[in-house]
């Protein structure tokens, strides 16, 4: 599967010099609007799309394999479902899964990363557990994400919650590793010593200094997690273990359209594929805008 | 390797000095800079880091460029060395090294070496390549200067280590930079810079991370090897005392401009610029250590020179 764990798991050695620019005073220009607009449109489509589509996305509405025409803008698939309506209606399912996954994986990743990073060097059972957890995060890389997703969803059934849970299991380790690397960096910074000298208690210190300074890469990465989640959801759909048909979902649509494409009827697979790529692009552009300089 | 007292002739030939007097190296002007200006484009408009810097250096001469942070000293010298970012806008009336115009040199992503010119930087730990052994790094340079066979290069490398005072050559040659102490790394860096027998060595704050003892040792080392091989030295430093002790001439920079140029040994008597005088006064010495209060600079300093007039100790404490 394309965008998957390795893509995300690149804790850059030595954090890039990124001064605290996330704060106020960021200037808005045409570029910024351009970065945020697609993601905004996507959300709008996801919310209102299912209500304004011309045909019911789950029903057979016309003859199968009609090429794009005035009545069916994107044509119909091999079962006679309207590709345009299904492509639009899929947005809310795919986006919802991806959003929830990105949120769960990021929050869990930050917590695990903090826990591991702060306790790894300790002696005693806490340190031992933290080191074990740290190794587990590394080992989690050994199995392809799509396979883990496949197994989990295959066994536990495909629904939005189970997909989110499975994808979160797959994607959390990367976020955790990313945060852990940052925590280890922050732990060496002199301002933690200064806080200790100011009498700060460990818990407050984590909250005030470690968390804000180490969670950043994971937040930036969250949009990539979002992209991976979309791609993985669609990939599972493509393999036939995603949301059960006739639920509109891009991966399932592409799977249905693939044999048609091999026979020269390109439209049933092309449009959902474009929708998929556009949403991943839109979100990564948003991520770059929100969490990076300039 | 024998120490020749003259610049390597084969290297000299490729940049034949046009119209230079056929004299000995002593009278040869090897570096000629006039009106050097370095600008950067910033969001807030163009920023001039160096403004009309001029300097000329004869073979074997040692010149210091002194200034505080933001004085443009490093920018000026790195422009000469060819190590400025391609984004920097460099212009000059003249910028020539051994008769070769340096301004026309194309600047790409990778800086180009200027034949006959070597540079040492402040931090040996980051300057030395961390993943290769010291021996391999020395060989990489020595193989280009005649020691083509590995055995010759190895012998020459060991020889150079001994010249910089590292006598445990077998261990040092096999070591990687992080396995050496700070002082040893600094010496390895000097050996690497000088073993290519450059005509000019540009040393950018070579000692500022070291304490006085080590700094002196290192400067003495640079000077003795440079003297032996007739290498000119351009020393860039904020340490005015060090500069005046180890060089022939001192150039003082402030805000991108040259404010003073004097023979080093008479800088204290001849200095006319108020900034130079202030700088000389400010340097903590064992003499001023006995004083009640250190002299501070008025408004002449850089961005930090806030008025000291009203500065006292904290008057209102917290606990009252």
């Amino acid at each position, binding site marked *: 599967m394309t965008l998957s764990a390795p893509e995300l798991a690149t804790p850059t050695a030595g954090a890039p010099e990124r001064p605290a620019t996330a704060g106020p005073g960021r200037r808005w220009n045409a570029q910024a609007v351009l970065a945020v607009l697609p993601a905004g449109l996507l959300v709008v489509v996801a919310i209102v799309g299912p209500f304004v589509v011309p045909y019911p996305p789950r029903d057979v509405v016309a003859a199968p394999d009609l090429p794009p025409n005035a009545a069916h803008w994107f044509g119909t698939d091999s079962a006679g479902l309207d590709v345009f309506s299904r492509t639009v209606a899929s947005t809310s399912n795919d986006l919802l899964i991806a959003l929830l996954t990105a949120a769960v994986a990021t929050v869990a990743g930050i917590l695990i990363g903090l826990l591991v990073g702060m306790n790894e060097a300790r002696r005693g059972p806490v340190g031992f557990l933290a080191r074990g957890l740290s190794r587990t995060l590394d080992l989690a890389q050994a199995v392809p994400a799509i396979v883990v997703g*496949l197994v989990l969803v*295959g066994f536990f059934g495909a629904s939005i919650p189970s997909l989110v849970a499975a994808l979160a299991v797959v994607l959390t380790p990367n976020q955790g590793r990313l945060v852990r690397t940052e925590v280890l960096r922050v732990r060496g910074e002199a301002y933690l010593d200064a806080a200790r000298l100011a009498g700060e208690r460990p818990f407050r210190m984590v909250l005030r200094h470690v968390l804000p300074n180490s969670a950043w890469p994971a937040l930036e990465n969250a949009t990539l997690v979002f992209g991976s989640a979309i791609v993985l959801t669609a990939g599972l759909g493509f393999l036939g273990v995603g949301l059960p048909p006739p639920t509109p979902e891009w991966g399932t649509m592409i799977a249905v359209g693939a044999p048609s494409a091999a026979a020269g009827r390109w439209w049933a697979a092309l449009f959902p594929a474009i929708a998929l790529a556009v949403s991943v692009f839109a979100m990564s552009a948003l991520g770059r805008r929100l969490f990076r300089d300039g | 390797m024998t120490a020749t007292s003259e610049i390597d002739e084969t290297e000299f030939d490729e940049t034949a000095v046009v119209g230079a007097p056929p004299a000995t190296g002593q009278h040869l002007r090897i570096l000629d800079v006039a009106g050097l200006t370095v600008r950067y484009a910033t969001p807030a408009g163009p920023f001039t880091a160096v403004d009309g810097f001029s300097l000329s250096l004869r073979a074997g001469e040692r010149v210091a460029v002194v200034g505080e942070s933001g004085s443009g000293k490093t920018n000026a010298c790195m422009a000469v060395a060819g190590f400025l970012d391609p984004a920097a806008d460099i212009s000059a009336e003249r910028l020539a090294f051994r008769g070769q115009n340096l301004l026309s040199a194309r600047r790409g992503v990778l800086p180009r070496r200027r034949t006959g010119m070597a540079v040492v930087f402040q931090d040996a730990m980051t300057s030395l390549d961390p993943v290769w052994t010291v021996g391999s790094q020395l060989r990489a340079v020595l193989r280009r200067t005649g020691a083509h066979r590995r055995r010759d290069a190895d012998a020459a490398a060991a020889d150079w280590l001994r010249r910089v005072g590292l006598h445990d050559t077998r261990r040092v040659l096999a070591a990687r930079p992080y396995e050496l102490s700070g002082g040893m790394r600094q010496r390895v860096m000097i050996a690497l810079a000088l073993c290519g027998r450059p005509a000019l060595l540009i040393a950018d704050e070579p000692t500022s991370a070291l304490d006085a003892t080590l700094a002196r040792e290192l400067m003495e080392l640079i000077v003795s090897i440079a003297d032996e091989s007739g290498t000119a030295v351009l020393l860039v430093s904020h340490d005015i005392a060090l500069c005046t002790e180890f060089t022939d001439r001192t150039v003082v920079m402030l805000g991108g401009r040259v404010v003073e140029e004097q023979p080093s040994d008479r800088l204290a008597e001849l200095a006319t610029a108020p900034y130079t005088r202030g700088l000389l006064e400010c340097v903590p010495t064992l003499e001023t250590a006995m004083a009640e209060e250190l002299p501070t600079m008025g408004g002449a300093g850089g961005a930090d020179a806030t008025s000291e007039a009203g500065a006292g100790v904290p008057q209102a404490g917290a606990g009252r």
Partner: protein
Amino acid sequence: MSGLVRRNLWWVRRLAVLPVHLFVFAVVVFFLVRLVPGDPVRSLSGGQTMTPEQYEAAREHLGLSGSIVEQLLAFLGRIGRLDLGSSVANGTSVSAEMATRLPQTAELAVLAMTLSAAVTLAVGFFVVLRPGNPLSRALAGYARAAGAVPDFCLGVAAIFVFYSVLHWAPAPIGRYDSLLNPPPRTTGFPLLDAALSSDALLLGSMLEHLVLPVLVLVVAYAPMLMKLFIRSLSQSIGDQATRFRIASGASPLMVGLSITRRALPSSVAMFGTIFGFMLGGAVIVEQLFAIPGMGEYAVQAVGRADFVALQGFLLVVGAVSLVVFFVVDVIIMLLDPRRRPGVTVEEG
């Protein structure tokens, strides 16, 4: 002698933890499979009523009898004998299946990764050294967009364009033309076997059938490597060490080697991860091109709720990935000795 030992201790130590990792992984797989809800015996019998004896026999057969500790020990014992059990669905030996399928996938993965690595090196240097060039900007953009177009989209598009429209590629079914006979099995790797059998027709057909899947994998995965390599290469070029190399007068070749050696470790790590992924996870490409590899097996196993087959699949994939990671770690430690265990680098 002791010097020899000390010099090699770093990779020996890394090798020594490999079995530990394998063991931990096996235990995790064991418990993961047992976490699956429902009774595998009941669901497999398809609702047929069983006598208690039949039921117990079925449990026994699946390794589900006895306490959890006994089950684990039996499970580990069987793994030790390389026996992965037999498929619940059709009774075939999982080990035997793996032995024929792993080479199929490995061949695909090795070809795709070799090509990706070559492309990455070439593109990386080009992009970093010629930043202003329009082609280099386009390539950099492609690398940044890594992953936005997933492999199944690329695969479907490739089949449409090169098979149905242009007719350049053969039908996306299997490894070779269905009219040809399979090569005699000598190494297990189909392409190698075909080459050894000197059956030019078969070899040609195989190569023809490989072009599209390999290209899809390269186009989908190489940008991830490229993105990372471009980043670390420009970091490495900007290093003080690079400047000092040039300043001290090393040859351009040596400067290039120095830059590359410092840039490579992070890309090598990513290479290993992607390679591991492909060995078990070229799932979608195998599905698309009907290649009988590991991924296809996993999809079938999930479809049939065949937990023995899946367990075996996970173990093989995990083991292969862990070995790949070991090799990657050793290569990284060779490139950058600071990463060897026990090496401390003082800061600053």
